[in-house]
């Protein structure tokens, strides 16, 4: 299978992240799965005229296309023209190119939260009128209509994340190559379920603090960040703490909150990214699938039951009270 990769209005960080794939590296991974890069803006040798000829051949149907990957949001501004992002050398907007090329592809993959839902590029006043390839925030219908399906009969596959984990992208591509990427493999926002059926909370090393609502009050403290510091790992989809990033990393492991970057409209939480909105002192957001009354009851009970070790460590920047060791039997 071949892959054409376009970088639309984003930061390029999903490609940069992709290059961090390991065991094996991204080039070996793609080779091994029979995936050939037709053109990629950061990696291929061709520049200028040969690229224009390639794009024209794909558009005309002369060059078959298996997978179109789009990274970055699609700009519709100013005034619906898309001219805030002209694909250089072509005199045409990226909006126009994506609409022209997507119907030619067997699969269309939106890489990153800009490409999937608009992402940070659509934050604030959204000056460039950015949308995702097939979503405008949480609403179906972006640069492509809500009903769009690629030649293989699927909607745009939304590999959301800001940035995407390299494995989310490579494994999506490997699943496509293996013929395993079917409609039921995608969740309600068209994200691959292999990572979107997990929550960032899963395997978070702060889980013991969470169990007791033993909370950090300032960034750099090691307690749970849900109550005060805006962490939405109990609601955000992603296997970040299961597979980890760049070796053994994740946002919560590094001491800052999960900001739900795999979700539509994460860029506008309605409050500071590192602060928890509260009503009458109680956090507004609830863990996914948790009934509110039970959450309140369990939280107050567990908070009252917090062991000293966990309470002290929660507001420290490192473990100061270690677990008590069981005394040897006499």
């Amino acid at each position, binding site marked *: 299978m071949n892959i054409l990769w376009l970088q639309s*209005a*984003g*930061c*390029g*960080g999903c*490609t*940069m*992240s992709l*290059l*961090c*794939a*390991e065991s094996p*590296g991204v080039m*070996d991974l793609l080779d091994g799965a029979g995936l050939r890069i037709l053109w*990629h*803006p*950061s*990696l*291929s*040798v*061709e*520049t200028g*005229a*040969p690229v224009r000829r390639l794009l024209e051949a794909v558009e005309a149907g002369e060059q078959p296309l298996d997978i179109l990957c789009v990274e970055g949001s699609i*700009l519709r501004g*100013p*005034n619906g023209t898309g*001219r*805030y*992002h002209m*694909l*250089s*050398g*072509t005199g045409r907007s990226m909006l126009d190119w994506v609409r022209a090329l997507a119907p030619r592809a067997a699969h269309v993959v939106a890489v990153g939260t800009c490409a999937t839902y608009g992402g*940070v*590029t659509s*934050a*604030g*006043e959204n*000056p*460039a009128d950015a949308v995702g390839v097939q979503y405008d925030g949480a609403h179906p219908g972006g640069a492509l209509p809500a009903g769009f399906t690629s030649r293989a009969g699927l909607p745009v596959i939304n590999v959301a994340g*800001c*940035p995407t984990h390299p494995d989310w992208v490579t494994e999506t591509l490997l699943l496509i190559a293996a013929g395993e990427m079917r409609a039921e493999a995608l969740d309600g926002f068209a994200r691959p379920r292999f990572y979107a059926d997990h929550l960032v909370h899963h395997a978070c090393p702060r889980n013991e603090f969470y169990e007791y609502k033993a909370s950090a009050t300032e*960034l*750099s403290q090691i307690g749970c960040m849900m109550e005060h510091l805006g962490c939405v790992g109990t609601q955000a989809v992603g296997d970040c703490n299961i597979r*980890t990033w*760049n*070796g*053994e*990393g*994740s*946002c*919560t*492991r*590094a*001491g*800052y909150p999960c900001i739900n970057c795999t979700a539509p409209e994460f860029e506008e939480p309605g409050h*500071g*990214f590192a602060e928890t909105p509260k009503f009458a002192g109680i956090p507004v957001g609830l863990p996914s699938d948790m009934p509110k009354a039970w959450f309140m009851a369990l939280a107050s009970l567990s908070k009252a039951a917090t062991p000293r070790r966990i309470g002290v460590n929660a507001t420290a*920047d490192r473990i100061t009270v270690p677990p008590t060791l069981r005394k040897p039997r006499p």
Partner: protein
Amino acid sequence: MSDRTLLVGPFNRVEGDLEIRLDVADGRVSAAYANSPLFRGFERILLGKQPQDALTITPRICGICSISQSAAAALALAACAGEQAAPEGARIAALLHGVENLADHLTHFYLFFMPDFARPEYAGRAWHDRAVARFTALQGSGLRAATEARAGLFHIVGLLGGKWPHTLAIQPGGVTRAPTARDKVRIGADLRAFRRFLEAELFGAPVEDFAALDGAGALDRWAGGDAGLFLSIAEDLDLAALGPGPGRLMSFGAYPGPEGTVFARGTWEAGRIGPLDPGDIAEDLSHAWMLGEAAHPEAGQTLPDAAMRAGAYSWCKAPRLAGRTMETGALARQAVDGHPLGRALAAEGGVRARVAARLLEIARTQIALEAMKAAIAPEAAFMRPLALPRQGAGAGLVEAARGALGHWCRIEDGRLASYQIVAPTTWNFSPRDASGTPGPVEAALVGAPVGPDEDTPLSVQHIVRSFDPCMVCTVH
């Protein structure tokens, strides 16, 4: 008079979108126009936000200079509060930033710049077979080894910053994770692994030996590793003479920490190192699709000209220092820092100089990162409480891999009332200013040879890529 006009784009193996228009006369570029064809409007997105939101939003300007943006935002916010980060926190921020810059230089050399020498157009050159083996796009053995080494190096950011790009670990008061003694030895192991790559593949010798080169003559004699291969290519193709810059270099100073910067702040011109006054910066809008007047970034605005008026040709503003174009990047940093090879390369000033200065900086940054690691004091505090004011203004000036990056912000009533960003490639790839003076890359392209059958001239590609442009940062 120009014989023909060429439009070069999509221009790949640069970060982001770039279009270059060339007037060609007598087989040479007679005029060049650099267009940054993407406007996202981050400076407008930030307006009205809580100040600390800049720490989440600005790194996402750029997926390759993400930590640079993060560091600049944290410094600017701290400056608004009139405070500084905890000293040990600043050291970790510098370490994270240095890792990104080091990785970016490697990405540039192996993935962006060198693959052009594996092109069939160069078949028959004495070095071509080696270039094909090492640097063929997506395939070369050197390129693949570098990609793996880079992924390993980024484990340091995974450990201390959670992920790369787009960490939120760097804060105005310090960093969000206090490294332990165990973290410290793990970082040491990652740095040693990277050093092994550099010495086995890139330099073919200890990094100290490359860092000790004291001039162009010593550099000419360097034969080891992929650096040696590049130097022999550069000699054969006379890359030293290709793409001269404006001869004025500028650095904001890299890695501010408790002991000052690692690489100094200042300017370089005609062999002399001088001071830099950020108050002399102004962004000219005469040839940008922007409305308003030229202004210092403290007073600047971002009002896109949706009509895309004729006469303007880029979304990029044109920053000038005291009215003059400046080149920024590793070449500037190494010259301004007074390194003897850096100064010699600055005097040379072309494609070879930019790439060799990056190689020099790779060697020196590896050494600097090892020292930063050794200085980590796990018992220290890495964050200090720092309250942002309801009113205030401040600037964060740092060095991204590609050069001087500045954030200027103003807080009013607890919200961002102004946020202006001038990125390295904004300087290097700026359009003409009101006096008609072309930006640095536009000037560097004049005189580049263009073959009669070329529609995407190789010389132009070498020159443009030698600057390592980051177009997503440029306009933001």
